[in-house]
């Protein structure tokens, strides 16, 4: 039975195309129930004890689904969950069609402004990211893996002003009200942002200003961020 139930989805996935493969999961694109769908499969990790592996994988799948629903309820755009298979640990998600990652968008915009580099055209986007993250943190959702690749811009009407920001990949997310956790969330983004997009410090500053202005609980988080910058992501284990 165990074998047979996993066959259903794996046979389906064998026909789909792999978009991405990470350490934690594989991502496919396929047509499911007549719609273009993204399927995230958390495959078994052979290096872990089978029982522990099953438990961790299950917990992460559940966590991802919960965070997505929590964000959606608050009006923060994330992909719709169509179906979850808790036996093969697959999440079937809405394919955000006609979208680019924030990473590619920033890179393309900077390319265009070459040779007179200016960050001004990107400031509204940075402010938008700050606002969305503030709302997410106000819902006590900590993303856990904020990068500009995990944010999509979707055309919702015509013109650039109509781009809406969609957050994806809640695989490492969790629910927490602690400013510490939210501060680390921003710290991870700062590191990723500045290494993916060199010389954009003013842009990230803009993002933080907008975050601070939008969130009711931002001052404690920004204070924690300053602390985390001094010590790094991990807390000291001494004492």
């Amino acid at each position, binding site marked *: 039975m165990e074998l047979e139930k996993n066959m259903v989805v794996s046979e389906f996935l064998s026909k789909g195309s792999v978009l991405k493969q990470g350490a934690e999961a594989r991502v496919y694109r396929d047509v499911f*129930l007549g719609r273009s769908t993204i399927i995230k499969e958390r495959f078994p990790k052979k290096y872990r004890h089978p029982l522990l592996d099953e438990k961790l994988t299950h917990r992460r799948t559940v966590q991802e689904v919960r965070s997505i629903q929590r964000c959606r309820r608050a009006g923060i755009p994330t992909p719709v969950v169509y179906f979850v298979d808790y036996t093969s640990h697959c999440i079937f998600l809405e394919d955000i069609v006609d979208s680019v990652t924030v990473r590619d968008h920033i890179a393309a915009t900077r390319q265009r402004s070459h040779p007179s580099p200016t960050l001004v055209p990107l400031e509204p986007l940075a402010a938008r990211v700050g606002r969305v993250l503030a709302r997410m943190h106000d819902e006590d959702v900590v993303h856990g893996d904020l990068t500009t690749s995990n944010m999509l811009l979707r055309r919702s009407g015509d013109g650039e002003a109509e781009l809406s920001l969609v957050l994806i990949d809640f695989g490492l997310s969790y629910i927490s009200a602690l400013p510490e956790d939210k501060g680390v969330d921003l710290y991870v983004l700062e590191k990723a942002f500045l290494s993916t997009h060199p010389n954009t410090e003013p842009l990230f500053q803009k993002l933080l200003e907008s975050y601070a202005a939008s969130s009711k609980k931002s001052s404690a988080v920004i204070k924690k961020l300053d602390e985390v910058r001094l010590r790094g992501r991990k807390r000291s284990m001494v004492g």
Partner: protein
Amino acid sequence: MHSSHPLELFPGRTVTLMLFKCVRNPAELRRSAMGGQITAALINPRMLVDPFQVIVAANKAVHLQTIGKMKTRSLNSEIIFNLSPTNNISEAFKRFGISDADDSVLVVLVATGDESQTLADIKEKVDGEQVPMEELPTLSDVTQIRKLYKVTPQEEKMGGLLDSVVCKMATKDVM
């Protein structure tokens, strides 16, 4: 005038939908479905935004049947249960099943292979007018749907009512 949708995860299986208006024998139909003379799920279309909602519920029902983890006794009752945003079975039947006072019904049939005979048999039993699936939105009660699925205004504004409803259905067992 029925519409059929393949379940990609279960090759050979399709979901077939038939919509009826001005139904004069709802009580009889409900009894037949419960007694097993009608082998299809009979659904109250007032709580449906779009056929996609039913296909999502049917896919989940077939999946749970395959792995032996259905919460109700049959595939057809499982489809009705999966439509509900809560885990309360009797509540689900009350909201999404047909009641003796209803005058419209959506027939949902999950079939393997040729189902034309079953479809004809069901059509025979329904004393009402079959209408195209496109008429489904004219029968839905959007205000009640919003209330039942607890869709917040900001959520609906983001991606529409159908997205919110489907997402709630798909995630209900871990919320």
